[in-house]
């Protein structure tokens, strides 16, 4: 068996040093909690926020006035809030301004324009603005420095393979030390665990470049670890059956739609949407926010390509947009423009819709940030019932850290080395390394992608049904057995990727189980055998959890 290189004891272990994980670490450490962050890459640049972001949705009384409800309604009604719990969204809104002020104080520029709070992007004409424009290019470096200054231990290149638990509460984590190619295990036993591993990319065959798996909208290193590990540990997850799809430049998926100051145009030059006739930095074209499938729908009608046209915007707005691309971490796109001679004043860029990934599909948390598994907290894109994205990760990460700081002393530390789970997982991962020959991890990932795309595809162009989903489940389970029997890794990097594939397989299985239970059509979940939308489900959320070794899919009311 692969060796255990160290065993660590702490009050809180954070899985994933992204935005949510670092914010939880900082707020818990401020209250004297001992914190260890396990990060598979390096917190200075890891995760979806590693390059920067530029929109932070929030409620600022000095800008929005004293009525929080107006902004709350805007988020719930117009900004894909429909699958979230109102109670948690409200709590998020209340806390958001204090986090904006903290970030400004720590050195993330929340007022890049004239030293004022400016709201724009993803904005409907005549509606309240909820997206604060900021410059997040250095956000990960700033948060890392802040965490370190408070004594947080950050273990970079430590990929978490399993959340450890005894069936009643979270107890720690089993990690892989991937800072050297020779793999070894690291055990962490703790009073509380914070899950902040981000979204689940690489589930479906990439729509943009089917041959290239890492051309994804959000970080391809976020591979459903938290979703799968929390699920296996018995926590409840929600919204798995409702696909979400992003859009951006057609063959290059790392894009920030909200930063573009554009009008969407048909190839004959006419406008696609009815919303505006001139784009400015205040109000750009909202067509694809309202009509999420516009690119696919028009391709199927033969009316594509749809172009993003910035050629008619004012020079000042153009300069703003270029600056905002940088704040948002789109510097490789800027380099591309330079190298390939792309000038957005002269050329309109084709956009397309991508494969589904997880945004607002994931672990269920309470208003205090705790999951249904005691001692396990979660925040950010791994969470399903309140919006993640940058602000959701930052604010709820903070809320989790605060509550952990208040409560961690109530829980004791238990040794994890002797748990059956720990032993079984270490033996399993070691076996992948020790076998003489076998299949590379990519084959398992491609297999999963083709199964999910074919049997649990997302609309508008793909449909689901009882027969498709049942066959898909059978195929996926067979693939998992093949992977267990034949996958071979040769170093820590490959072991990390293989573990990702096993997590993604569990996520895929859960997607199909939930999709089979939702016997209606809603959004991109198109059930050909149930072509109607059931109004009785409007205020419900579907969940999945494991009880006594079996999956249970159910439905609950939204938390008001």
């Amino acid at each position, binding site marked *: 068996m692969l060796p255990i290189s160290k065993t660590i004891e702490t009050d809180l272990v954070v899985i994933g040093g992204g935005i949510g994980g670092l914010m939880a670490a900082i707020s818990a450490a401020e209250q004297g909690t001992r914190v260890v962050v396990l990060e598979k890459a390096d917190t200075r640049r890891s995760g979806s926020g590693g390059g920067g972001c530029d929109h932070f949705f929030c409620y600022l009384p000095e800008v929005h006035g004293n009525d929080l409800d107006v902004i709350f309604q805007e988020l719930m009604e117009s900004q894909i809030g429909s699958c979230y719990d109102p109670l948690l969204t409200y709590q998020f809104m209340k806390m958001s301004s204090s986090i904006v002020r903290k970030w400004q104080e720590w050195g993330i520029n929340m007022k890049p324009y004239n030293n004022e709070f400016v709201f724009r992007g993803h904005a409907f004409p005549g509606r309240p603005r909820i997206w604060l424009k900021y410059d997040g290019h250095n956000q990960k470096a700033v948060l890392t420095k802040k965490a370190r200054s408070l004594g947080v231990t950050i273990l970079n290149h430590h990929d978490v393979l399993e959340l450890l638990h005894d069936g009643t509460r979270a107890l720690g984590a089993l990690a892989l030390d991937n*800072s050297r190619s020779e793999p070894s295990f690291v055990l962490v036993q703790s009073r509380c665990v914070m899950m902040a591993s981000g979204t689940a990319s690489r589930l479906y065959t990439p729509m943009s470049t089917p041959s290239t798996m890492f051309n994804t909208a959000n970080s391809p290193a976020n591979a459903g670890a938290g979703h799968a590990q929390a699920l296996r540990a018995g926590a409840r997850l929600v919204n798995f059956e409702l696909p979400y799809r992003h859009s951006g430049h057609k063959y290059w998926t790392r894009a920030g739609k909200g930063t573009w100051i554009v009008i969407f*145009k048909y190839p004959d030059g006419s406008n696609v949407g009815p919303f505006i006739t001139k784009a400015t930095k205040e109000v750009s074209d909202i067509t694809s926010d309202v009509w999420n499938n516009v690119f696919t729908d028009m391709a199927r009608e033969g009316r594509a390509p749809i172009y993003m046209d910035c050629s008619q915007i004012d020079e000042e707005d153009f300069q703003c947009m270029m600056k905002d691309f940088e704040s948002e971490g789109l510097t490789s796109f800027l380099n591309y423009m330079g190298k390939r001679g792309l000038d957005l004043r002269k050329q309109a860029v084709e956009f397309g819709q991508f494969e589904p990934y997880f945004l607002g599909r994931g672990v269920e948390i309470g208003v205090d940030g705790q999951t249904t598994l005691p001692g396990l907290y979660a925040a950010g894109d791994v969470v399903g019932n309140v919006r993640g994205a940058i602000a959701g990760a930052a604010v709820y990460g903070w809320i989790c850290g605060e509550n952990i700081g208040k409560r961690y002393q109530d829980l004791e530390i238990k040794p994890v080395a002797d748990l059956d789970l720990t032993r079984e997982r270490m033996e399993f991962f070691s076996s992948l390394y020790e076998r003489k020959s076998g299949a590379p991890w990519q084959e398992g990932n491609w297999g999963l992608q083709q199964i999910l795309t074919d049997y649990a595809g997302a609309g508008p162009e793909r449909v689901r049904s009882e027969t498709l989903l049942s066959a898909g489940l059978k195929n996926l389970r067979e693939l998992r057995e093949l992977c267990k029997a034949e996958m071979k890794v040769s170093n820590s990097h490959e072991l990390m990727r293989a573990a990702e594939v096993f997590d993604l397989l569990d996520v895929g299985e859960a997607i199909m189980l939930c999709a089979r239970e939702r016997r209606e059509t809603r959004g991109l979940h198109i059930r050909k055998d149930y072509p109607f939308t059931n109004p009785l489900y409007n205020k419900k959320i579907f969940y999945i959890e494991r009880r006594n070794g079996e999956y249970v899919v159910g439905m609950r009311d939204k938390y008001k």
Partner: protein
Amino acid sequence: MPPVIDKEKCIGCGLCVEICPCEVFDIDHAPKTVPVVLYPRECWHCNACVLDCPRKAVDLRFPLHYMITTTDAAALNHKAGD
């Protein structure tokens, strides 16, 4: 989008190896040597290695199929009669 390191400029500090979110470089980097790009197909074109390299020694190669597809904006608007 594989990174390409300029061997003349690189001082082998290892920062790119450390910070890459996808572990594209060989993790067993020996100090003062030029890092090895081991997993180019796992690059997310996040640009961190380009931005953070103290010697500006890293460049990203754009794969041919990561095209930004375009049309001439003046012609587009001419069609619409602007």
